[in-house]
């Protein structure tokens, strides 16, 4: 509904974005005048800004029901509220973990934080997008910030290569998205997602399916679904680990929102068609992601394929095509982010100046060198494998449940079988850490007390939410209905 006038009430729901834009400016100015003299201060300020931002969001953006603002371009609803808080948390935690890593590689620059915040702004725009234009704005804002972050370590050849691949392939995906959107706009005559939903609920032109195809390809690319996943392992491996941590977590929230807003809302009228498109993608993603991960000797690359496999599960939630399925996908996404934060955090803490702990063999005997880190990693690996009492189990259970409710027998069987394959490579990490003896040459692990505490809490959350899953499950169900 277009609002008659811009009053403060309308602005209030959009406070997170407005605040974040201002925060970016503040951080940028701070870096220019203070940060260059006191390295690290910008990072502290950014964390402070994120904490205040979360508080501001809680105070103002907690809308009781769906509100459409700014001529229908922007939506505020309980879902957006929860997703934004989750994004705040994910970004704050990943910046917290990465600080020492950046410092030891001489890339602790204020711009890193500015880019991270602008990526966060992109995530927010996507979360609250209610028209094709805002969707595209969010996608590009997020993507461009992230490309620059991947290339942030300009001394590193692999990082530059990864950034280049990411940029070129990402540009193609953006092109696809834009092309698909233009077709849909041409056929429905509106950019507004509500309008498109209304237009598609009536009998529609076959051309819509053509547009939909491009949109689905773009969504699949952004999420990392097979066969549009090629960029993901290279970027995860090539990027500095702190950036891998960043792009492996918060942006997933945005891409979940992208799929949700575009497919299940705007393009709900062609649900049958996008379900038919996503089904083979999800099956391929599950199979390829899980099997190729076995062959990896680099942990970051292995986790990249694990991400792909997890995306397969998230897609299954969409394929179920019910509110229950979307809830399952939301829950899975949040759980995945929690676990990914921890796993990449462990890699960061196990690394040292001049030593990237990214090969699997670097984790041999980690138990002896650093029991806390090994325990945290073991819990995270068991969680991703879907073994109770860890939260990853409930994520898988929720997806299975949504699939059964819609009678997808074969998808259940495939998902179950591939998760057994997946268990193997997670177990291998545990095996390296606990059963093998450490070679003498491996350096000690790093991390200040605060960061280690945070990582410990992260792993503890995986356990506590595994034993008492009800609160998070309820939250997801509540915001999705």
């Amino acid at each position: 509904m277009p609002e008659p006038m811009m009053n403060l009430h309308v602005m209030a729901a959009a406070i997170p974005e407005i605040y974040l834009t201002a925060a970016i400016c503040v951080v940028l100015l701070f870096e220019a005048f203070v940060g260059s003299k006191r390295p690290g201060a910008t990072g502290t300020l950014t964390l402070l800004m994120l904490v205040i931002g979360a508080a501001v969001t809680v105070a103002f953006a907690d809308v009781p029901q769906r509100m459409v603002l700014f001529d229908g371009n922007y939506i505020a609803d309980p879902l957006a509220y929860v997703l934004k808080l989750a994004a705040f948390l994910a970004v704050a935690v990943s910046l917290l973990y990465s600080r020492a890593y950046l410092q030891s590689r001489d890339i602790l620059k204020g711009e890193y934080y500015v880019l991270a915040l602008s990526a966060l702004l992109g995530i927010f725009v996507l979360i609250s997008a209610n028209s094709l234009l805002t969707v595209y704005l969010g996608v590009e804002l997020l993507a461009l910030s992230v490309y620059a972050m991947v290339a942030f370590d300009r001394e590193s050849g692999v990082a530059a290569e990864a950034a280049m691949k990411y940029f070129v392939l990402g540009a193609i995906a953006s092109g696809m998205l834009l092309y698909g959107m233009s077709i849909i706009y041409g056929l429905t005559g509106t950019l507004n997602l509500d309008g498109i939903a209304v237009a598609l609920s009536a009998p529609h032109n076959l051309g819509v399916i053509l547009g939909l195809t491009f949109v689905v390809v773009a969504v699949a690319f952004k999420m990392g679904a097979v066969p549009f996943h090629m960029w993901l392992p290279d970027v995860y491996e090539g990027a500095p680990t702190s950036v891998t941590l960043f792009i492996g977590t918060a942006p997933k929230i945005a891409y979940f929102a992208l799929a949700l807003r575009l497919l299940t809302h705007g393009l709900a009228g062609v649900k049958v068609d996008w379900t038919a498109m996503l089904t083979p993608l999800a099956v391929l993603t599950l199979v390829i992601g899980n099997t190729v991960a076995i062959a990896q000797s680099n942990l970051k690359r292995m986790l990249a394929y694990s991400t792909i496999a997890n995306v397969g599960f998230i897609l299954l939630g969409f394929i179920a095509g019910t509110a229950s399925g979307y809830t399952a996908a939301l829950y899975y996404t949040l759980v995945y982010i929690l676990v990914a934060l921890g796993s990449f955090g462990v890699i960061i803490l196990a690394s040292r100046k001049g030593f990237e702990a990214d090969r699997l063999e670097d984790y041999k005997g980690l138990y002896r060198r650093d029991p806390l880190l090994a325990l945290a990693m073991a819990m995270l690996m068991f969680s991703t494998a879907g073994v109770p009492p860890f939260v990853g189990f409930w994520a898988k259970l929720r997806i299975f449940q949504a699939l059964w409710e819609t009678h997808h027998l074969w998808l259940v069987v495939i998902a179950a079988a591939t998760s057994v394959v997946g268990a193997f490579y997670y177990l291998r990490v545990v095996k390296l850490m606990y059963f093998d003896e450490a070679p003498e040459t491996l350096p000690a692990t790093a991390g200040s007390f605060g960061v280690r505490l945070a990582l410990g809490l992260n792993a503890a959350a995986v356990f506590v939410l595994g034993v008492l899953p009800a609160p998070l499950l309820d939250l997801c169900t509540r915001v999705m209905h």
Partner: protein
Amino acid sequence: MHDHLLSLLIWLPIAAGIVVLLLGERHIGAGRWLSLIASLAALALCVPLVMDFNTHTAAYQFIESAPWIPRFHASYALGVDGISMPLIVLTALMTVPVVIAAWNVISKRPAQYYAAFLIMEGLMVGVFSATDALLFYFFWEAMLIPMFLIIGIWGGPRRVYATIKFFLYTFLGSVFMLAALIYMYVKSGSYSIASFQSLPLTLTEQRWIFAAFMLAFAVKVPMWPVHTWLPDAHVEAPTGGSVILAAIMLKMGGYGFLRFSLPIVPDACRQLDTLVITLSLIAVIYIGFVALVQQDMKKLIAYSSIAHMGFVTLGAFLVYAIVRSTGATQGAGMGMDGAMVQMISHGLISGALFLCVGVLYDRMHSRQIADYGGVINTMPVFAGFMVLFALANTGLPGTSGFVGEFLVILASFKASFWYAALAAVTLILGAAYTLWLVKRVVFGPVANDHVAHLSDLNGREFLILGALALAVLMLGIWPEPLLKIMEPSIQHLVAQAAATKIPV
């Protein structure tokens, strides 16, 4: 206390395990005693469980219930009946010797070793006492983690291969069971096992669910042909791991058949019972032959376990054949009684045999039969125990091994002559491989210098083997109390298994 007896049995060992873990290797002295006290306390908690158990009802007793995930209608619901209670007692009973047996033997990360077994104990009791399917699955899967670590950290040379194989095999089976449980939840709207048992299911649905259950439980039992993880796991596992694996974890497969397969999908069971019985008989006969040729003591006992567990699955599934041949369920209870007694008895005997092998291994660091011979000359007391447990393993009357096998064979006569004839082959085969093992290891002249220098049992070893010997004999001479405890539950189960759930 009765209101929370089962919770205490679950969480007391787990809490103690966590404390031992936190005490760390530096305070292992205190950790050891704490482990012993905790395992004894758990055993003591079984006393009121047995004493106040009402033997006249098939209903769950000592029930507890608290909301867990209200949205899924999943609750923290516990309770025991005549089928699960003896298994819980067995769990508490077998953990004590494991703790004692490790006393001076485990030198590598002992605190973690004790902690792993205590946590295992709690989780295993959880499996047997959960009356909510989701809670059951939660414990069932969580248990894999400590066992994975036990085999992987304290195991033999090929421990990594064995433990990953163990984990993946069981995980494969369980995942499909989870899928089946969720399916039934979606249909019934609750995760309580009772609601699954009363849920009408078409034959097609039942067949799929049967297959999923079969995968999970057959791997765990294990049945031929999905048994191959067990010999590997046993050979590589430390003594305590083998004891728990053989004595308790295998029983979960049998328990699963009794608690889930038979009452939830009775029609599919009726249709496919020949499959289960055939696989059971293959386990009894073929695996018996396989056991005969083993060179490694632990491997031999592992194969013997598979053969003995074949009796459990055989006894459990005889009900349909009995109904077909006699037209009534009379006598079907005997098969299930046999299956249950066999589980308890095998838990005691196989646990004791693995402890015996552990006693020898601690002294000689070899499990090869060929390295031994004439042990009786230097270890007469040990030899006495070993021979007793071996005879119990062959089903000598007067020992618990006899009761279970006898009941199952008796029941299979009612079903079919051929079932009984084939099952009875075990009397020959079991005797052959077990006695031949004893002959080669225990009897004869002293084989080599190492054997000549063996020292007999110390007090600690004598205590645990003596206690188990007592249990084996008591159950063999006077099985009546156990049968009485199980009676109403078994009758109820026979009725459930013989009923039909196909909606009309």
